[in-house]
């Protein structure tokens, strides 16, 4: 909100002029990306090596979602033709959500932490049991 001081009192309405691009081409790229994001995890499920499969799933599903979202925001919502604070505003909101995640995840996402455990969560979590074969649920460390 700092770069519009000089515009005070300016009562015209164009703002920045929006430049319309080739929307159909953007749409075609988006559809290709959609196909990749669906096919990627299917391919991944055929891969034996688990870390590779996970990497393929994550990158095709979420990496491409980010790309798609960026394309929509840029080409359809014309964020680059708004005032500069708008992208900052959007990024700030996302940063706040990341803060929420960072603050809450050590409690909510974990099944155990310093001096506490969630026995119910551990009981249903096969991965955890695989790593802790004694199945102890009561002891904290």
């Amino acid at each position, binding site marked *: 909100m700092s770069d519009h001081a000089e515009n005070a009192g300016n009562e015209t309405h164009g703002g920045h002029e929006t430049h319309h691009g080739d929307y159909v081409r953007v749409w075609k790229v988006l559809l290709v990306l959609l196909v990749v994001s669906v096919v990627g995890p299917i391919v991944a*499920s055929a891969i034996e090596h688990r870390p590779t499969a996970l990497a393929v*799933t994550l990158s095709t599903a979420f990496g491409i979602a980010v790309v798609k979202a960026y394309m*929509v925001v840029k080409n359809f919502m014309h964020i680059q033709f708004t005032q500069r604070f708008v992208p900052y505003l959007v990024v700030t909101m996302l940063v706040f959500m990341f803060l929420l995640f960072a603050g809450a995840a050590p409690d909510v996402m974990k099944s155990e932490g310093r001096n506490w455990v969630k026995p119910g969560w551990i009981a249903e979590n096969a991965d955890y049991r695989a790593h802790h074969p004694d199945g102890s649920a009561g002891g904290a460390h």
Partner: protein
Amino acid sequence: MSSARPIATTRSASGMPTGRLAVWWVIASEIVIFGGILTSYVMYRLAHDSFAEQAAHTNTWIGAFNTFVLLTSSLMAVQAHKAADSGDGAKAARFLHYTCLGGILFILVKSFEWASEIGRGYTISSSPFWSFYYTAAGLHALHVIAGVVIMFIVAAAAKQYRDLHRVELIGVYWHFVDVVWIFLFPLLYIAK
């Protein structure tokens, strides 16, 4: 009660038209609403194995089809914006109606999908995954419905060449709804 618009609305000290400015603020406040529920979902998803097992019962093809529908409707919305900018209200209204059609199709597919999920016994109270599945998608669907209703109103005005700048505003909102779905789709359907 004044029927005329206040002068305040016509001022533009920030360099941005008031409506466009406001729509971005609406989007900012929506980001944190969806952010709250998706952050919660991601935390639970990463903590529970059962989420992946449950997510395997979702229908990826329906989700993908709905993504296709929303992407296409977004294309229509931006074409409407282009038409409105060139002053062609009738064309803008036509494209807006195509967008509405996309929204309605999305909701119809969604209802069909939900009905079949519920028919197979996966209700909102079946497990935390399904709770999130219905809550997050339901919140999104509510936005789709609201968007369609507003779009019909905007299209009716645009047809008579009134308030053409609104075409862009509803379009920006619609693209945001699209972006939310772009993230919901892999989160709910693909991550198995």
